[in-house]
């Protein structure tokens, strides 16, 4: 019996979230007195999984699974879970993992709790804390099934080193036509940009920018910080920025280390989407903007003056600290 973790990779290399879910799985394994096994698809080596407590990697080598396929991945992971007799299976909260989580849950008859933010408060009964009401509250949730499926929120647990020898074994799941009912035709992904999901820092802007033509300075600020760009709902509704950048209750949730909000007043729906970010900075002309109540640091000022000045100061800071 072990804890099984699905470690996501891209072009053979593990994503940072893979190390976070591995760290978390090791935390659960220690509570249960067992080891962590991982499953991945077409990983080129075990990477640093051993550093984060993984003892065994089941590596699926199958060219048909180079691209994410929720049906086939869920079937393969469930077979690995059964082979390991895993009672707890850990996945991340990426778009892909959330996609396959519900399928995996049915395959395994495993109670599924997503958006989990901490180690179980109790292993028996198995009780985890998860965010609900779009981060406006938490629920302490009990899973009553024999197998449990836990989806960890990004940045909720962090990386914890637990050096372990990690062996790699090929794993060949038995897949069938039903696993490939959804066929990927094309992928349109901006590979040179930091995504909101992966970003440590997010620079977000709202109606205060007055028009899409003024986003150059937002992108420049993001570029200096190695950040992703995001926006408020009205901005995406008006077509100034793509839907994929909309942060909030009906858009994307953000759990970055630093969230910089420029010209966003801070509607309750927007604040719900960024509650999980650790440090929040607000730049706004209106000192009464509700966002200042949710922020750690604030600058009352005109974005068109503050942002260019901040870019120059950050460039100088980066040069001095390179």
């Amino acid at each position, binding site marked *: 019996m072990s804890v099984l973790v699905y470690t996501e990779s891209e072009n053979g290399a593990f994503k940072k979230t893979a190390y976070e879910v591995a760290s978390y799985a090791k935390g659960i394994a220690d509570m249960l007195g067992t080891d962590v096994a991982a499953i991945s698809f077409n990983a080129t080596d075990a990477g640093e999984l051993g550093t984060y407590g993984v003892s065994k990697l089941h590596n699926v080598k199958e060219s048909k699974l180079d691209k*994410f396929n*929720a*049906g086939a991945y869920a079937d393969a992971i469930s077979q690995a879970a059964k082979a390991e007799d895993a009672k707890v299976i850990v996945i991340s909260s990426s*778009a892909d993992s*959330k*996609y396959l989580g*519900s*399928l995996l*849950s*049915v395959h395994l008859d*495993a*109670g*599924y709790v*997503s*958006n989990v933010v901490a180690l179980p408060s109790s292993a028996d009964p198995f009780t985890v804390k998860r*965010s*609900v*009401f779009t981060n*406006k*509250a*938490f*629920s*302490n*949730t*009990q*899973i*009553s099934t024999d197998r449990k499926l836990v989806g960890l929120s990004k940045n909720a647990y962090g990386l914890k080193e637990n050096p372990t020898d990690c062996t790699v074994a090929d794993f060949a799941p038995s897949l069938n036509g*039903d696993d490939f009912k*959804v066929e990927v*035709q094309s*992928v*349109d*992904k*901006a*590979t040179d*940009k930091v995504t*909101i999901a992966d970003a440590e*820092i997010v620079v977000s802007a709202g109606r205060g920018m007055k028009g899409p033509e003024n986003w150059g300075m937002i992108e420049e600020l993001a570029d200096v*910080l190695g950040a992703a760009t995001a926006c408020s709902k009205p901005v995406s*509704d008006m077509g100034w920025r793509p839907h*994929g950048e*909309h942060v909030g*209750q*009906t*858009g994307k949730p953000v759990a970055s280390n*630093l969230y910089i909000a420029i010209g966003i007043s801070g509607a*309750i*729906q927007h604040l719900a989407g960024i509650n999980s970010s650790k*440090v929040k*900075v607000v730049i706004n002309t209106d000192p009464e903007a509700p966002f*200042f109540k949710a*922020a*750690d*640091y*604030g*600058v009352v*000022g005109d974005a068109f003056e503050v942002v260019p*000045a901040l870019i120059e*100061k950050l460039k100088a*800071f980066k040069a001095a600290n390179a």
Partner: protein
Amino acid sequence: MKILVCISHVPDTTSKINFTDDNTQFDTNGVQFVINPNDEFGLTRAMWFKEKQNASVDVVTVGGAEVEPTLRKALAIGADQAIRVDTPAVDGYAVAKELADVVKNGGYDLVIAGRESIDYNGGMVPGMVAAMTGSSFVNTCISLEIDGDTATATREIDGGKETVKASLPLVIGGQKGLVEESDLRIPNMRGIMMARKKPLDVKASVGASTETSTVSFEKPAPKGEVTLVDADNLDKLIDLLHNEAKAI
């Protein structure tokens, strides 16, 4: 084509969240309930299929009589008939089991659900319904076309989008982008009057078991005061972010 739209009855996005009974129950006092926003995009897309491709559109909710105004609103927007499964929606798995039973008995070609509800945010019901009914499943769907028994869908992925083909029967987890915000429909007086005459079928629960349960709720710790930095002293902000917050 027969479409079923799964509607979640959720607190309005502006709602303040409170709990009662020693933090074990959501406090509905003073809360306005609405169609879950992700489901509203799906319902509007279903209306497009009804008008352009002659589809029939049913809506379904799992819950007590209190969810009926939400179903009536969906009827006023244009759904043909509504189904309420008469049992509390206490767990994603149990809700999915109830919905899967409706799907199997109704012979639906396409099931549209929101990618998640804005109350419990589990994001598990659409995929579970697909797995339980043996249907294809596309999550975080931002565009959907149907031609015969084949669907072409685009879904949002981290950092971009992906276009997929899938055969019907199909379940999608939809979201903003499925239709534009400006295309969302508000029931007009004629729709509201017609909705009163449309069938709202109350179906007995299949008695699905639950897999999870809420022991208690908590609210986040109160936030401290904001530290304001003068716009002429941005070095101070950088210093705070570097040395105090360790964020850059």
